[in-house]
């Protein structure tokens, strides 16, 4: 039976209040850890998604919008690029490579990317890593599809499987392209980017499934079978965006200006890194305020704990008087309350960390399906370790306030028990 035992037994005696206080602290600490985890992982994920692409070409819109829909599959394109304009622009001397991207269809909530096999060659993520085939091969035929890793995993698809794409984007699809099924010829290795959440088909495949469609609507009564479609001209009419690599970095700005001044249709080219920086800039206020709010929640939690302990002191006058009568030094009364506060702090921290992992596990699924971002269960970063240490130390220090009050109270009360 030591001081820790007495402090914990005394606390156990007030377990409803103690548990509630503990939860209050745990929730406050788990909030800041989770907010920070989402912040850090989102940033890292975004930064790692695209590498080696100098420019993104698209219809004129907000640069952020173009970046989000072309690379992160967030949001939708409002306009397309004419195939002829694309060809004309990318014929330019300065362009080393160009990969067209055509979006707009989906399969069970996963987005379909129409592109060329150059995509597998030139698309790079996370500091210059290229896509790799995990099983099978790249698409060759019109009705071939290559799956991102998560698509195959989540939907349980194997090579050779037949699947039907849906027109439009969303889980509950509007219209299926069920007359022209695709067969799985390849599955990509995991990348931790939106590529994992995408299905890749050829531009010709994209044209083929839309051959009886005009302006987003199926032409009534027009039925063209898959076999018939193969005989037709499947050259795309439009694409959504294009990833472009320049021969030299210096020509990037020049080419960008050229695109922006292009007369035949309103187009734009963005530098992904610069646009991402713009995004962070925009986000930083939100980021800072979220962190500030979380920090305030922690402060509120600690103040709440102090209030709970202070409010409890009156009921514990007898306990203190008994301890004093037994010869307990007044300084140990302070210790008792510091221990109690510290106990709240430590167990609040541990429980809060557990709660944080629980939130991450829940949010991870959501973030994965909404944005293709996987949250990690990594240890908190240095800043968060400081926050946690600060929290723990403050919880002990805060115990001094009720400690001193109890000390004073025990001196004025003496050994007289009034209740």
């Amino acid at each position: 039976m030591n001081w820790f035992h007495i402090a914990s037994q005394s606390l156990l005696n007030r377990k409803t209040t103690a548990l509630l206080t503990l939860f209050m602290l745990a929730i406050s600490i788990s909030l800041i850890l989770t907010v920070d985890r989402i912040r850090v992982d989102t940033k890292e994920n975004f930064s790692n998604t695209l590498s080696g692409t100098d420019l993104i070409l698209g219809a004129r819109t907000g640069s952020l919008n173009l970046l989000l829909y072309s690379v992160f599959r967030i949001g939708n394109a409002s306009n397309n690029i004419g195939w002829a304009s694309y060809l004309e622009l990318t014929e330019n001397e300065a362009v080393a490579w160009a990969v067209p991207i055509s979006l707009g269809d989906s399969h069970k909530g996963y987005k379909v990317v129409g592109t060329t096999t150059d995509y597998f060659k030139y698309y790079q993520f996370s500091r210059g890593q290229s896509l790799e085939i995990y099983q099978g091969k790249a698409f060759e035929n019109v009705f071939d599809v290559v799956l991102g890793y998560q698509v195959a995993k989540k939907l349980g698809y194997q090579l050779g499987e037949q699947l039907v794409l849906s027109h439009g984007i969303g889980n509950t699809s509007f219209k299926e392209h069920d007359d022209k099924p695709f067969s799985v010829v390849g599955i990509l290795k995991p990348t931790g980017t939106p590529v994992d959440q995408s299905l890749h088909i050829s531009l010709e495949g994209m044209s083929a499934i839309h051959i009886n469609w005009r302006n987003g609507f199926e032409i009534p009564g027009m039925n063209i079978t898959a076999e018939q479609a193969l005989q037709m001209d499947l050259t795309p009419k439009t694409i959504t965006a294009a990833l472009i690599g320049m021969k030299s970095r210096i020509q990037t700005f020049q080419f960008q200006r050229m695109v922006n001044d292009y007369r035949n249709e309103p187009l734009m080219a963005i530098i992904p890194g610069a646009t991402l920086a713009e995004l962070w800039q925009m986000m930083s206020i939100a980021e800072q305020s979220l962190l500030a709010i979380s920090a305030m929640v922690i402060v509120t939690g600690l103040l709440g704990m102090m209030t709970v302990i202070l409010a409890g002191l009156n009921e514990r006058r007898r306990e203190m008087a008994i301890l004093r009568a037994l010869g307990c030094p007044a300084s140990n009364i302070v210790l008792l309350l510091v221990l109690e506060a510290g106990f709240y702090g430590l167990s609040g921290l541990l429980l809060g960390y557990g709660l944080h992992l629980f939130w991450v596990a829940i949010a991870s699924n959501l973030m994965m399906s909404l944005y293709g971002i996987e949250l990690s269960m990594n240890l908190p970063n240095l800043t968060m370790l400081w926050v946690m240490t600060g929290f723990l130390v403050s919880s002990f220090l805060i115990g001094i306030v009720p400690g001193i009050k109890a000390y004073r109270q025990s001196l004025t009360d003496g050994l007289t028990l009034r209740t």
Partner: protein
Amino acid sequence: MNTIVIDNLEFSWSIGASNLLTIPELKVAKGEHLFVHGSSGTGKSTLLNLISGVILPDSGTIELMGAQTSSINQRRRDKIRANHIGYIFQQFNLLPYLSVLQNVLMPLKFSKSRKLNAEKNHNSSEQAAIHWLNELNIPSKLHTAPIAKLSVGQQQRVAAARALIGSPDIIIADEPTSSLDQDNVENFMHTLIEESAIIDASIVFVSHDKTLKKYFDKDFELRVAK
């Protein structure tokens, strides 16, 4: 030898107020049993606080086991209280979150000398606690019970066991029988006097009930201050 010596003591709770207590002289010899009586508000509990060294006299001195408590620091006064005094309150003596046995063991936590005494006389602290609980007729099935399971009389007897463990030199009791019925009072008084005699402890027993005077060697009356 005297366990308590009070000399020219004056005390008032607030500065400038007239003295609540004025005691020219009061001595308690080792093993002597003193009965302090007086009507409500005469300062009986205040006197016990002074003797215990929880509060200090405005003037005069109090000697406890030869040490002048008014001239030493608070920490040492706490130490002297832990080592030499067993304290029994009017009621609600026990910590509700500890078992009966743990409550009885508490004084040994604060005093090494009482712990050594207990171990010397009864082999171990636990055995000492069990011994005193048995002496005070607490059935052994209650030893590990939470104190909420005890009757008021039983609680007071457990408090007495706690005061007696480790053989302190002084037992201080502040109206410990006022919440007991007549039979229980007799029983409690007899055991307390007998057991204190066994360990040769002085008793300072406070009550406004003058009928209890018969149990004591000596009595001291507090009167309303003029």
